[in-house]
């Protein structure tokens, strides 16, 4: 069964350093999401792509976070510089459905990768 691939699984870094996470969605899934999940909380959306275009990055701290999906397939999320409060699980998800609401068939089922656990020291 096809899966969303993420790497690395774990990342330990010192504050003020740069970190990058990679995600390869399920083949054919045009919509890609990056979430941040703090321990004991639900995932919170950081950025959403439709193909190579950003659909929603309203919750992305743009002073330090950036995301790209240049060819509309795999994606990279970067943090520079990392801060202590960035320690969390970073999840990537993909969906075969476009981000369109209001249709009776829309499901927006999201398929998640295993995540990258970031620890900032």
């Amino acid at each position, binding site marked *: 069964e096809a899966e*969303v691939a993420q790497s690395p699984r774990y990342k330990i870094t010192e504050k003020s350093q740069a970190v990058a996470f990679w995600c390869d969605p399920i083949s054919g899934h045009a919509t890609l999401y990056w979430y941040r999940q703090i321990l*004991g*909380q*639900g*995932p*919170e*959306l950081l950025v*959403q792509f439709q193909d190579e275009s950003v*659909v*929603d990055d309203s919750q992305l701290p743009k002073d330090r976070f950036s995301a790209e999906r240049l060819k509309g397939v795999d994606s990279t999320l970067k943090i520079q510089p990392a801060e202590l409060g960035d320690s969390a699980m970073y*999840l990537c*998800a993909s969906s075969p*459905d*476009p*981000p*369109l*609401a*209001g249709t*009776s068939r*829309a*499901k*927006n*089922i*999201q*398929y*998640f*990768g*295993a*995540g990258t*656990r970031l620890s900032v020291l």
Partner: protein
Amino acid sequence: SQKIEQNSEALNIQEGKTATLTCNYTNYSPAYLQWYRQDPGRGPVFLLLIRENEKEKRKERLKVTFDTTLKQSLFHITASQPADSATYLCALFYGGSQGNLIFGKGTKLSVKP
């Protein structure tokens, strides 16, 4: 802003019993609601979706109900097994052009043998 509450952080039950998890939301009703399972150190896995015009959905030992009057969804696992132990997340999907899911904090279910 929309608020989602899952009834408790943790639920402990005995094997064979029915687990019932609650998801409450404020303000307006979502177009649909989803339930996901998340194991430690893993990403969430989709389980069930229920739309605002549906009362109940079933899948094997799982059942979801949706009451837009109470602004509540109930998630039931019948004949629970230790393998059902995990965190269960509800997620709401609203109208609009962006189609984002809003997740609750989750309820950690522990099924004891």
